């Protein structure tokens, strides 16, 4: 075959593997002999290789879910008279969505404030970190602690939340999500005060909680050290694996309904990663990682000053005046507020802040406030109810209300053991309460 008998289209078909077999050998032979065709085939091949690399770009499920949610929200907020308006950006759209409703803004802000207070369960008073550091030599000089906490609720369509958490001994806490939900808290002589930013609503919540009992077990340094020491009690040794480019030793521990997996750096003995799962909350897990001690954190990082232009929503409460009935009322309110009468996806830490905002965006609440409670009572009931959890000792309570609808008297959604009581209190999905022996608690 002479060079003039081979067309570019034949060469393309050759590269694409579309040539009939009787033409392939002939074309190959020609390409070996013809420099210009050889170069053309090389270019076609590199072009297709480039396309192949473009095809291999991965897209994770979370990104897909997020995109779908956003487009549905955008469609919902675009009523007929807005159809001609160009969508300039997702952020602007979401801003309009919530800012257009002042009551919703207040309600969402209060939800965030409540979540913040739950998040303070690891932060219990002046000097607790120091006290523990005296016991653990390794941490004795550590004045700051930072780590990340990724929580997946296991509830369909609810987001996975990543929090970057920073403690500064003796009294500061800061939590932040990537999209700017920031909470800063400072321990006071009588409790905790702080500020929580709600970027979608450009509002901030100033909170002050008094009579918070001190619980050394909740000290963050102590919590990290407990995890680090977990291998001594490991029920299963997972061996050495490479995680994020590091060779780590894994250990597995089952305690009550929680399974904790810790990954330790064999060279330093330091905790690198901890993964928690709960038998009573299938699909939910928490991953703690990126632990760092003594990172330089300026006090300004923990500023209680709101950004300019943010609107304040002040709240306050006395923890000692809050009781079980307040928490039940909160659960009743939430199930009254949600479209499908379900209980909160989580009552665990500041995760609920982001989740509540998203639920509002997605129209999962029937309105700006719980219908049976009205605009005035909704924030107050929620605030008191959720505060009930704050003083409960670590490990003394369990929430299992995710995906559960109000009404079934046989489904337990929350249980805890009151201080000094031999029995546990169990709240069921119809919100009646029963005393149950610890050995008979739901598994």
């Amino acid at each position, binding site marked *: 075959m002479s060079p003039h008998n081979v067309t*570019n*289209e034949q060469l*393309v*078909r050759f*590269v*694409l593997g*579309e040539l009939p077999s009787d033409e392939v050998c002939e074309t190959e032979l020609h390409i070996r002999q013809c420099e210009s065709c050889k*170069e*053309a085939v*090389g*270019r*076609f091949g*590199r*072009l*297709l*290789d*480039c*396309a*192949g*690399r*473009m*095809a*291999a*770009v*991965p*897209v994770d499920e979370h*990104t*897909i879910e997020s*995109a*779908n949610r*956003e*487009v*549905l929200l*955008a*469609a919902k907020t*675009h009523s007929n008279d807005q*159809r001609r308006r160009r*969508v300039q950006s*997702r952020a602007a759209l979401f801003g309009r969505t919530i800012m257009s409703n002042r009551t919703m803004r207040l309600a969402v802000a209060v939800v965030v404030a409540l979540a913040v207070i739950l998040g303070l369960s690891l932060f219990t008073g002046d000097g607790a970190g120091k006290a523990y550091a005296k016991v653990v030599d390794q941490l004795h000089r550590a004045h700051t602690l930072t780590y990340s906490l990724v929580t997946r609720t296991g509830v369909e369509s609810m987001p996975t939340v990543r929090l970057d958490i920073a403690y500064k001994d003796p009294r500061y806490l800061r939590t932040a999500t990537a999209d700017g939900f920031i909470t800063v808290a400072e321990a006071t002589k009588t409790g905790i005060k702080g500020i929580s930013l709600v970027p979608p609503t450009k509002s901030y919540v100033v909170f002050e909680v008094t009579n918070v009992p001190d619980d050394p077990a909740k000290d963050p340094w102590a919590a990290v050290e407990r995890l680090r020491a977990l291998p001594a009690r490991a029920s299963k040794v997972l061996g050495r694996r490479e995680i994020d480019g590091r060779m780590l030793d894994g250990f597995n521990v089952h305690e009550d309904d929680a399974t904790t997996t810790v990954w330790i750096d064999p060279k330093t003995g330091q905790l690198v990663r901890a993964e928690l799962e709960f038998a009573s909350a299938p699909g939910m897990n928490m991953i703690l990682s990126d632990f760092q001690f003594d990172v330089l954190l300026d006090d300004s990082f923990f500023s209680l000053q709101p950004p300019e232009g943010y609107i304040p929503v002040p709240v306050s409460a006395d923890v000692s005046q809050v009781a079980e009935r307040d928490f039940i009322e909160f659960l009743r309110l939430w199930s009254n507020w949600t479209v499908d009468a379900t209980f909160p996806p989580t009552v665990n830490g500041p995760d609920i802040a982001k989740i509540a905002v998203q639920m509002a965006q997605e129209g999962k609440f029937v309105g700006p406030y719980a219908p049976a409670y009205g605009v005035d009572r909704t924030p107050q009931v929620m605030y008191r109810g959720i505060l009930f959890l704050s003083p409960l000792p670590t490990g003394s309570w369990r929430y299992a209300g995710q995906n559960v609808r109000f009404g079934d008297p046989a489904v337990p959604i929350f249980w805890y053991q009151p201080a000094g009581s031999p029995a546990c209190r169990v709240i069921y999905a119809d919100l009646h309460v029963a005393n149950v022996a610890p050995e008979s608690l739901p598994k």
Partner: protein
Amino acid sequence: MQQGLDPKWFFDKVTTTVSETSFENLVHEHGPQVLRTAMRVLRDASLAHDVHQEVFLAIWRRWHTYNGSVNWPAYLYRATVRKALELAQHRLVCSAPVRALKETPNGVTTNGPDGALQADELQQKLAAALARLPRRQADAFVLSRLEGLGAAEVGEIMGCSEPTVRVHLHRAVMRLARELHEYLGQ
């Protein structure tokens, strides 16, 4: 077949009708594919997000006008490719020039220590060049080479025969190679 595409899913959906499918179902069922296609063309999550939203919002604005015979997978593929290529061309305006790529003895295309970066820039150039192709050539190339669809599937989407798909693809490859001649090297 490329990652993320299930042929059965694809052909099952060809017969889906508007009357059976709410807009929300449409988003949930086809959103993943729209996002993946946009990502393959743009390789930028934020831009792919924008394509995803613009494609579906355009449908939503005309939702009441659709009748029951819409072939949603085909429609969405075409709309997604078009929108993604528009953005790709627009993005190129601000992008840096790339140098020609060379093939090393082991077959890896690179031009030095920053070979990966150059390869990424070549992908941008390719996406922009795709945007300048006649529409049907661009559709044939993206659906065949980026989405990994066979000629029959591409023909279903484009509404033409398999031989016609191949002709569009061949012309696309030749034209792209010509346009990117200096970047693809000797």
